């Protein structure tokens, strides 16, 4: 069952939710794009329905709402440490099906690969999801190939069609609040895409030996190791730790973690000048095989959710989906 509402009524609902929750959704940041006079759609806090961008794909994923770009782990003084506080408020995140599948990947990494992450666990226990339905596929999406075009595990879904918002609500409390707004009930299901312009196929015989293929060499020169493909990805989880100290008093400071990228220099540097995967092609190989090969070996399902953001963002027009589709050629080459 669901509801259909116009934005004024929805704003009343959102106003009620904001008493209990911080609400994050894709928002337009005017002139915030990477080229002049372009906007950036990324996640931010919203307090009204009109602030949410429904008709475009967000450049960055929802990831920063559960995994901040920079997160203080603890503060230190000369003799002691004090843990950083974590927000007490509950959180609602508006996202699409592929991203909700991405959430499962973050959970598996941060809760189940080794011990549960203290900071992630706390934020995660406070988050609820509102699914934004997809009426059509965006540029570079290949969610259908990755099986992430549909999902069920949302509290509420919302589709914008013309002036109306179509809502499917599973959360009991929110249902009550919506009924109290005198909204008529009618059957609503979130829309989802059933085909994308881009399709990928991951060869069934894919083995790590594909590392020896020449397909990776092209990226040595094309990729400029900017790491954007990692930063926009809803499933990339790597970070580095940094210690900062406050210059006015050299004795106190903090340890933070900051998003890191396997594509950029320094990621594998060790003492004495050593580093692994020096060439950009090797890094591309590492990333691609992680997303569509070795993560699955470990977790039973692929990491990449087919959102296409890495293809959208790459300044060198490097296409990840294209690269996946070259893997079978690569396997043929190394099997010779």
């Amino acid at each position: 069952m669901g509801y259909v509402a116009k934005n004024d009524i929805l704003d009343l609902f959102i106003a009620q939710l904001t008493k209990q929750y911080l609400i994050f959704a894709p928002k337009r940041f005017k002139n915030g794009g990477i080229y002049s006079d372009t906007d950036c759609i990324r996640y931010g806090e919203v307090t009204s329905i009109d602030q949410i961008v429904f008709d475009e794909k967000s450049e960055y994923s929802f990831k920063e709402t559960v995994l901040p770009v920079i997160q203080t782990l603890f503060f230190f003084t000369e003799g002691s440490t004090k843990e950083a506080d974590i927000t007490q408020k509950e959180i609602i995140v508006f996202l699409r099906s592929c991203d909700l599948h991405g959430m499962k990947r973050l959970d598996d990494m941060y809760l189940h690969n080794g011990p549960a992450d203290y900071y992630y666990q706390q934020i995660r226990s406070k988050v609820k999801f509102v699914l934004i339905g997809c009426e059509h596929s965006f540029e570079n999406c290949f969610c259908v190939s990755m099986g992430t075009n549909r999902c069920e595990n949302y509290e509420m879904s919302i589709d914008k069609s013309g002036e109306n918002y179509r809502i499917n609500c599973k959360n009991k409390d929110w249902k009550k609040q919506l009924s109290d707004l005198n909204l008529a009930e009618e059957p609503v299901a979130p829309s989802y895409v059933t085909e994308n312009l881009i399709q990928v196929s991951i060869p069934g015989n894919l083995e790590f030996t594909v590392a020896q293929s020449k397909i990776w060499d092209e990226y040595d020169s094309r990729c400029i190791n900017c790491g954007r493909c990692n930063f926009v990805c809803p499933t990339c989880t790597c970070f580095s730790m940094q210690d900062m100290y406050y210059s006015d008093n050299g004795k106190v400071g903090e340890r933070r973690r900051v998003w890191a990228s396997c594509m950029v220099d320094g990621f594998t540097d060790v003492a004495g000048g050593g580093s692994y995967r020096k060439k950009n092609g090797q890094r591309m190989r590492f990333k691609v095989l992680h997303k569509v090969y070795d993560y699955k070996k470990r977790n039973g399902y692929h990491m990449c959710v087919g959102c296409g953001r890495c293809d959208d963002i790459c300044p060198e027009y490097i296409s990840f989906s294209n690269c996946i589709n070259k893997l079978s050629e690569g396997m043929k080459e190394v099997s010779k």
Partner: protein
Amino acid sequence: MMLQNDYVPFPSEIKDIIKHTDIEYTFRMSYTGEIKPGQFFEVSIPKYGESPISVSGIGKDFIDLTIRRVGKVTDEVFENYLGDTLLLRGPYGNGFDVNLYKNKELVVIAGGTGLSPVRGVIDYFSKHPKAVKNMKVICGFKTPDDILFLNDIECWKKTANVILTVDNADETSNYNVGLVTKYIPGLRLNDKNNTVAIVVGPPAMMKFSVQALLNIGIPEENIWISQERKMCCGLGKCGHCKIGDVYVCLDGPVFNYTKGKTLID
């Protein structure tokens, strides 16, 4: 629900410092708790960061950390933390399982600081010599000045066949000279299929030592190596140590060679 914060280090008292060379000291740290040789701790110095360091010795109420001074964090350990405390978190990694080596002929080949992570294994079988059929240790260092754990090496000689070698030495010294690999073909083993080998050291040394062991007929599934990688969290989260489908901090650093050989960067 009580959540555990694995990122916050705990203070551990420096009980003793053993100076091996100018840049390599063993810090004897107070510690009680389960721990295996080959596991490691993150040594943490606020403002400078963290470094993964293997346990090089295990006692009832202490662990040894043998640290080589090479950079930001380790400089700070040497300069400012002598006689005080260090902040640690861990232990991390799988470590060596001594049960796998019991009742076998055991060969340990270690290069330089690579002796640290296996020192606990050698110590264990020195104290329990009947638990193995026999133990042979080949340890190599660059020069006589670089030798670590000389006293231990002398002790091990009582129950094990120990070859200590240096890459370079002048004629006046009476050390064996040559790489560890030089001594592998001459190992006298009764039953190669029942021989287990542990190899730890710099990547090139490990590569050629494993090759030499395979050449003399030790099956690859009987060989164990310890991999070092860039590390940051030690908890399977940060991704820095990942190779293929493996997280060295969780699944290693100790690997059976059948797995280790598949880890291509």
